[in-house]
């Protein structure tokens, strides 16, 4: 029995020497051939051979990876289905791209333990081993959901929840028109309304995919420390970051204003500002630098925002600290630009060539945009590495988001063709369900709950 084709990275996560993307199922060869270019197509090569070639992204014709592709045709394979194993060399990022390409071209992300399950269902594994297979699926699932749960804490979840909520609002409006046609409080939803709303949703999903395209959906935020001498402007910078819309209220218990962390959003990049209470309480982190805890915070941070006073020459103290963090990601902020220049900026730049310099007057909001851009640049060009991104489950999420995007763009196509709203709705419901799958939510009754909480319906 050949089932729909599944795909996953079959080697442990991390920077191993090679990594393998495994495809199993009825279309394994066909899907692999859409991506693989070698001397012969994989459908033509002999079974149980390993073949040299390249993985090409068909949409851009770009070469993604140099690979060895192992072809094993049914039935003499682990799952007794056609299997293609693509051996990649290029590190986590490339392997992820190869996996994403297989998912985009017809494969489905394998469930935890699914290869083994298929091996069993196809008779490859003996009946006496059934118990073992079941335990294996259970343990794989527990493990996967543990990882997924870790990843889904915090921002991404909140973000997707709010995205889903806006889709749900659209759905409810259409549904109320359908199930309560005489109810006059809700404007009749038109295809042009749907088109506008769907566009917004598509853009948001697009945005999410963009931020994850480098494997960098951040769940916790980049851990960031603001450092500087007293009165150099640390509080002002902090306040600037957390002013109205930039503040993110987390749902983590105990995360309130007077604790040690603040979550802010800078050009779409979440920052976890560490040791903010220190800034507030004493405004004197430089003096406390000898304290082990603060050193720890500096050492563990992924980004350091180091404030210097434009009005003062570089001190020995500053240099000592800067030397100690020379191998970390630091942005030097020369603040108080409104005062006379007494800091030798050229000397500073030559002394610390790896640290970009931004000139600001935070109280006057001068240069802060540039600072935000600098942070975004460092993040997107890969200079800042986040320690908390894990790739396995991200792939599942990305694949679901890709499908969600496809569904919403199908809905838009229909809307443009003037298809009735209830039919466009089919793809919007799918979008909403896929987003729900990303965050593992039970969808069954939500739409109906929404309907009755939002509208006053009934006889």
């Amino acid at each position, binding site marked *: 029995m050949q089932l729909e084709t599944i795909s996953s990275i079959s080697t442990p996560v991390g920077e191993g020497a090679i990594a393998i993307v495994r495809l199993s199922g009825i279309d394994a060869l066909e899907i692999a051939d859409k991506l693989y270019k070698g001397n012969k197509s994989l459908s033509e090569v002999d079974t149980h051979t390993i073949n040299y070639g390249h993985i090409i992204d068909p949409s851009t014709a770009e070469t993604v990876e140099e690979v060895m592709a192992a072809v094993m045709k049914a039935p003499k394979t682990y799952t007794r289905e056609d299997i293609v194993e693509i051996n990649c060399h290029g590190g986590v990022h490339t392997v992820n791209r190869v996996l994403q390409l297989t998912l985009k071209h017809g494969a489905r992300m394998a469930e935890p333990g699914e290869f083994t399950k298929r091996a069993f269902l196809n008779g490859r594994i003996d009946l006496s081993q059934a118990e073992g297979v079941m335990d294996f699926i259970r343990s794989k699932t527990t493990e996967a959901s543990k990882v997924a749960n870790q990843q889904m804490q915090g921002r991404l979840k909140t973000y997707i929840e709010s995205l889903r909520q806006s889709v749900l609002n659209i759905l409810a409006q259409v549904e109320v028109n359908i199930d309560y046609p005489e109810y006059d409080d809700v404007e009749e939803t038109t295809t042009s309304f749907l088109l506008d709303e769907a566009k917004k949703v598509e853009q948001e999903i697009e945005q999410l995919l963009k931020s994850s395209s480098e494997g960098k959906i951040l769940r916790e935020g980049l851990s960031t420390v603001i450092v500087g001498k007293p009165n150099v402007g640390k509080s002002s910078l902090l306040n600037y970051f957390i002013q109205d819309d930039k503040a993110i209220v987390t749902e983590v218990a105990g995360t309130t204003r007077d604790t040690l962390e603040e979550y802010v959003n800078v050009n779409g990049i979440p920052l976890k500002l560490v040791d903010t209470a220190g800034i507030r309480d004493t405004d004197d982190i430089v003096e406390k630098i000898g304290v082990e805890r603060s050193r720890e915070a500096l050492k563990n941070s992924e980004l350091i925002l180091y404030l210097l006073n434009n009005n003062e020459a570089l001190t020995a103290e500053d240099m000592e600290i800067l030397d100690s963090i020379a191998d970390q990601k630091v942005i030097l902020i020369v603040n108080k630009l409104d005062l006379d220049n007494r800091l030798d900026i050229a000397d500073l730049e030559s002394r610390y060539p790896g640290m970009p310099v931004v000139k600001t007057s935070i109280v006057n909001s001068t240069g802060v945009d540039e600072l935000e851009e600098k942070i975004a640049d460092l993040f997107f060009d890969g200079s800042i590495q986040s320690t908390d991104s894990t790739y396995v489950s991200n792939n599942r999420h990305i694949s679901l988001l890709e499908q969600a995007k496809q569904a919403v763009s199908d809905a838009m196509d229909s809307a443009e063709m003037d298809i009735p709203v209830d039919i466009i709705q089919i793809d919007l419901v799918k979008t909403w369900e896929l987003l729900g799958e990303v965050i593992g939510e039970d969808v069954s009754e939500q739409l109906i709950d929404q309907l009755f909480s939002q509208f*006053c319906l009934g006889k």
Partner: protein
Amino acid sequence: MTDNMKYDVVVIGAGHAGVEAGLASARKGLSTLMLTINLDNIAFMPCNPSVGGPAKGIVVREVDALGGEMAKVIDKTHIQMRMLNTGKGPAVRALRAQADKVFYQQEMKRVLEDEPNLDILQGMVDEIIIEDETVKGIRTNIGTIYDAETVIVTTGTFLRGEIILGDLKYSSGPNHQMPSVPLADQLKDLGFDIVRFKTGTPPRVNSDSIDYDKTEIQPGDDTPMAFSFETTDFILDQLPCWLTYTTENTHMIINDNLHLSAMYSGMVKGTGPRYCPSIEDKVVRFDDKPRHQIFLEPEGRNTKEVYVQGLSTSMPENVQRQMLSTVPGLENARMMRAGYAIEYDSLVPTQIWPSLETKKIKNLFTAGQINGTSGYEEAAGQGLIAGVNAAAKLLGEEPMILSRSEAYIGVLVDDLVTKGTSEPYRLLTSRAEYRLLLRHDNADLRLTEKGREYGLISDERYDAYNVKSANIEAEMNRLQTVRIKPNERAQSIIEQRGGTQLKDGILAYDLMKRPEMNYESIMEILGEDIVLAQSEFEQVEIQIKYDGYIKKSLAQVDKMNRMEKKKIPADIDYDAVHSLATEARDRLKKVKPLDIAQASRISGVNPADISILLVYIEQGNVKRVEA
């Protein structure tokens, strides 16, 4: 041996579930007895005088396609009929009729009287006689025993019914009839999980006392329409309904008297449906709304009673009068019946198999409000299923279980027995994941074959169905071969309809997919007379126009069907499947799904549990629960 009278099937109740149940089993050739507390209240509509609407109207057509009666009777007895959602796609269109309540009852009663295998009898059932967890018969309140092979309980809101009005609460069935209490006690003693549900109804007023000038008229459609695929006589003489609104004053009176409302004084214990809120609820929950719609619906041609839709309430009678007087048009309205709330017992429906037989007692079936639903149509659909299956069980046939992709009735039953319900359940189109397939226009194409299989469809009707489906198929095939050339006639017709001109020849089939084209315009281009009936070419048009979407839905259905084919033994011992998560195991033990598809719909059962279950069943050595 006893000398009790003996029936194959006994139906307790003659509401919308009961009548369909009794008719179905009688029509399957089994001797059937239907008991009701009051013979004058057969197929009574205790609440709104209407049948159909979105989703519900489709159920009425499904009942018809399966040989039921609701569609035919409403076709004969309505005072108004409308097609809803005409501005939307074909999937969500639906008929709704305003009923002449008394005429509907009389007509349904006549149908029952005419049915050869069916006896109808006035009487209250106090006890279901059970031996070895199997139904043996029933005993009425005057002590008569009727032996029965199967019993179908369709007690509606009679089961331990209690009416609540202001600070008054008294034991009563709907519309102040006798409630059924001993039977409720017995079901409880048998160990069934019982919940208390609540519903309500608005006051009725005398039409002569309404100032219609202050309201908006809501006429019916003037095109001939019918629910039943067999109806040929259409009622064109229609009565209008009227629309008015509550006012600030209405809301003030409600707020001032909230402490007197049964709903807010803590008197009501039952869970009410969110989709049928009382006016008190609406005012409290949506306090920013300045007004709520009120529809004035005549209850029939030979009565002046008018149903005040939108004003469902359990306020004391005098407060109801004050409320009415604040509504434009109703200032001087004379109230004829006060609104009230009613609480009743209902079974937690996960105790029922998809055949609607209870899991606990063999040959005991339940249908309608006792299963946690609300609505005449939902009741009728279940009644039909229960009637067919009670008979099928005795005849040794497989039970009729409709899948979610076949019928709204399938969605309804599956939702109930798989997920249960925390409030009186109403069908909504959004509950159906394949609603594009479950259209009102194709109910006959979906279900006639099934109705025939169970012996509920006459030869005549079956022949007509075969002709219709053959015509549709032939025309669909033909249009895939007919080419339209970009000649002057074609171009001008296309242009007239606002489309862009053809560059090349195109298949008629493909041209019809354009939004501006329909079947008639294609025939016009082809210069052909329309020979198909409208119901036929409408199918051709819908199936071609929405082909892409229909195929998408069918692909999903296909996936589900594969899972439905993987059956789970009814007596599987879930405790022996060690790797299942605890929550999943508990839910599975309770619901006892028939197949993997149903199992996957149970909340708390996740894909890993399904995988584990599949592997367990596949290994062949399934441990059974000891009987």
